[in-house]
């Protein structure tokens, strides 16, 4: 958790620096992040409560509990996304410019996520005899958390190198393609995945679909830009 908060703080600093280059004022990006974060926290809790309404009906005071486990990540992301969309509409800011400005934030958060997986021993790998295997949960395993951290750092480096892309939205969509591509590859080494048809990992299928979606979005966005 501490690593994620640290990564978010570093990422926000990068996003703030990038915002002005994308035509967004420092004040607007700070407000957008603030409201997004508030929506993320409350949305995650409200979504969890709604999904477990019977558990809270017997102890409604627990809705205000400080337990971080009473949280639904999908609900949190949806609430944050809706809030960001409303904010950009009301302030007449381009959503593509916002997403481009926030891309370093997402990329650094990805590095933080890999490090937090490493610290907690979650998102662990398949057993292997490779010389760089790490002993975890009673077996020598692929250090998938290190792969994830390194790949996320590489993606951040690539995006930073290519940060002057003149087409709004392409920077963010390229990040989306890179991160989903990374997940397709790395999930092949993961041992904690839900398996579906003939042992195929569910996470890889979802990531492949997201990769395809990001390619389609890149083409739609390039078409919109050239049409203008």
């Amino acid at each position, binding site marked *: 958790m501490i690593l994620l908060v640290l990564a978010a703080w570093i990422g926000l600093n990068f996003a703030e620096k990038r915002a002005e280059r994308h035509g967004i004022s420092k004040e607007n990006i700070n407000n957008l992040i603030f409201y997004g974060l508030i929506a993320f926290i409350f949305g995650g809790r409200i979504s969890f409560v709604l999904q477990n309404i019977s558990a809270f009906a017997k102890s409604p005071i627990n*809705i205000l509990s400080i337990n971080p486990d009473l949280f639904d990540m999908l609900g949190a992301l949806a609430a944050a996304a809706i809030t960001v969309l409303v904010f950009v509409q009301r302030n007449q800011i381009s959503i593509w410019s916002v997403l481009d400005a926030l891309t370093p934030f997402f990329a650094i958060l990805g590095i933080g996520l890999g490090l937090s997986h490493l610290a907690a021993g979650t998102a662990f790998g398949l057993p292997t005899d490779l010389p760089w295997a790490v002993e975890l949960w009673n077996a020598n395993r692929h250090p998938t958390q290190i792969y994830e951290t390194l790949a996320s750092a590489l993606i951040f480096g690539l995006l930073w190198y290519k940060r002057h892309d003149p087409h709004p939205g392409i920077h963010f969509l390229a990040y989306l393609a890179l991160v989903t591509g990374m997940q397709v590859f790395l999930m*092949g080494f993961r041992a904690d995945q839900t398996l579906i048809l*003939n042992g195929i990992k569910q996470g890889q299928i979802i*990531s492949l679909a997201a990769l395809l979606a990001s390619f389609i979005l890149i083409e739609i966005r390039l078409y919109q830009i050239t049409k203008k």
Partner: protein
Amino acid sequence: MNFTQRIILYILLLVAGLSWTVLSAGSTPNSAPAGQSAPQAGFTAPNFTLQTPTGESYTLSELKGKAVLVNLWATWCPPCRAEMPAIQKIYDEYKDQGFVVLAVDMTAQDNPADVLPFAEKFSLNFPILLDETGDVGRDYQLRSLPSSFFIDREGVISEVVIGGPMSEALLRTRVEQILK
């Protein structure tokens, strides 16, 4: 890069991704690393046999078929004290459905004489077990007190909650999950 070159690149990347997905399939027999024991969600819970202060013996593996909460705690730990009434309340609510609580006192780091008065003070009627050698703490890679392991009817850890105190609602959602 023109449109045609990009489309070719997309197709190549998607085909490579799909091939890798198929090639890496079936590397594990199921989502849980079956049969392996470790104190982590998805693994079989490490087995132990411990005694209560009155000499009654409990073995975790013998509780297969029941949903079990293994709670590692100590009398001097404030969040452990804070969550005990909630654990007792949830135990009373779900014990008839096959829910068992094994509250393992980290006796190696605690005063054994404080355990029974503690249980009496909070009117705890689930088994309080003594980890006098510290083996269970080691096997469960104890990092923080309290630590709670929610174990399903198959003996597989469904959820790990490090730290506390756990609220009633959190306990209720996790217990309902392992009772399924």
